[in-house]
């Protein structure tokens, strides 16, 4: 069946099987492979994308359920060559090692900062508690998000319009 949505601001119209999961639709059909696919059981959070500005696990969402909505993937964080503060923070504070968990971490961080530009360390840890990182021990991820928070401006990328 036909689905129509925006992905990172671009209109996307595609034919999908109803059973197509959003993560596979984004990666295999639309070709945006920045969204990672890990546990496949809604536990690891690497597949997180923003739907109408809120983080959702795309391995546990059908593409057809998102028709008519706005999706932001990790590719949508950078605008015209300008990295999002969150991306810059991950570079500055070594927020990644292998990078597998990173797309989900960064999108969840972006949604958090859109709702709360000055989160405490506890609030940051709570926000990313649905995501697993096997490399960093989280300390540098928390630091990266805090780095971004310190430079937060009121421009909200991927927030609900």
């Amino acid at each position, binding site marked *: *069946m036909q689905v129509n949505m925006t992905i990172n601001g671009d209109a996307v119209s595609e034919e999908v*099987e*109803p*059973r197509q*999961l959003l993560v*596979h639709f984004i990666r295999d059909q639309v070709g945006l492979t920045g969204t990672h696919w890990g546990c*496949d*059981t*809604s536990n690891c*959070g690497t597949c*997180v994308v923003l739907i109408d500005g*809120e*983080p*959702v*696990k795309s391995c*546990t*969402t*059908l593409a*057809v*359920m998102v028709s008519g909505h706005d999706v932001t993937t990790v590719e949508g964080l950078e605008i015209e060559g300008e990295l999002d503060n969150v991306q810059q923070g991950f570079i500055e504070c070594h927020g990644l090692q292998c990078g597998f968990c990173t797309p989900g971490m960064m999108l*969840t961080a972006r949604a958090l900062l859109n709702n709360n530009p000055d989160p405490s360390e506890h609030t940051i840890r*709570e*926000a990313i*508690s*649905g*995501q697993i990182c096997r490399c960093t021990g989280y300390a540098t991820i928390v630091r990266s998000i805090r780095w971004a928070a310190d430079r937060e401006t009121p421009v909200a990328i991927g927030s609900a319009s």
Partner: protein
Amino acid sequence: MQVPAPFEYERATSVENAIALRERLGEEARFIAGGHSLLPMMKLRLANPEYLIDINDLTELFFITEEAGEIRIGAMTRHRELLESELLAEHFPIFRDAEKVIADPVVRNRGTLGGSLCQADPSEDLSAVCAALDASCLIKSTTGERLVAMTDFHVGPYETAVGDAEMLTEIRIPLKANSGSAYEKVERRAGDWAVVSSGAAVWMDGDVIADGRVGLAAVGPNTTSIGPVSDALRGAAPSEELYQQVGEIAAANCSPQTDQRGSVAYKKHLAMELTRRSLRRAVARAQGQEA
């Protein structure tokens, strides 16, 4: 890679439309709310519906209101709204206690109250919460609606009183004076399902407990509301001895299984201890001694 078996998908446009679709498509059709219980089951082929009726557009089912001496909550209200609602926190702090420890914030953006109750997993935290609060469930069909008490809502594990051509639309919780409620859960790690949890609600009349309820999760079927607990609480004055006694009744009235989360003995111990703690906190809140 886990992929559901093929099915047809319809998006309902109203509650009437959803129920009409369900009636027409019959027992091979299922509603999909947040999809965070149903899709994992479909991916494992534990559920193979032929039709999915998406109810996420039914904005009339997203609400938390105070009406006619009750708090009414629409079936599509998501975990996150239950966590953030000031109205619920004021009247039934048990919701915020529980929601803080249900899954993780990303799952809570999608999972719904209606989906949690209809999933009827014996580990579902909100079933214990709603049972402790003496909630009832409004179930609609093409021919009318009926109210079912939480105690009768779960027919068995993964089975509810909602018929093939019916839909759960709303939960109603009576507002009664001098109430207090609290939730206690032990989990192996943040965001996991309960090893055991216990929710308690009390309604005070001066210095005695006029009525009280305890609901347990993850300790077998028929534990969302334990009758002998309420019998022991009614008319009793709160004391540490009472909490201990009621904790023991709760432990005696549940049937946990040994699994990777713990042994029967450990889970029974938790049922006792968590009931003691949730009751103690519920009473303190009813007496205005704790937020």
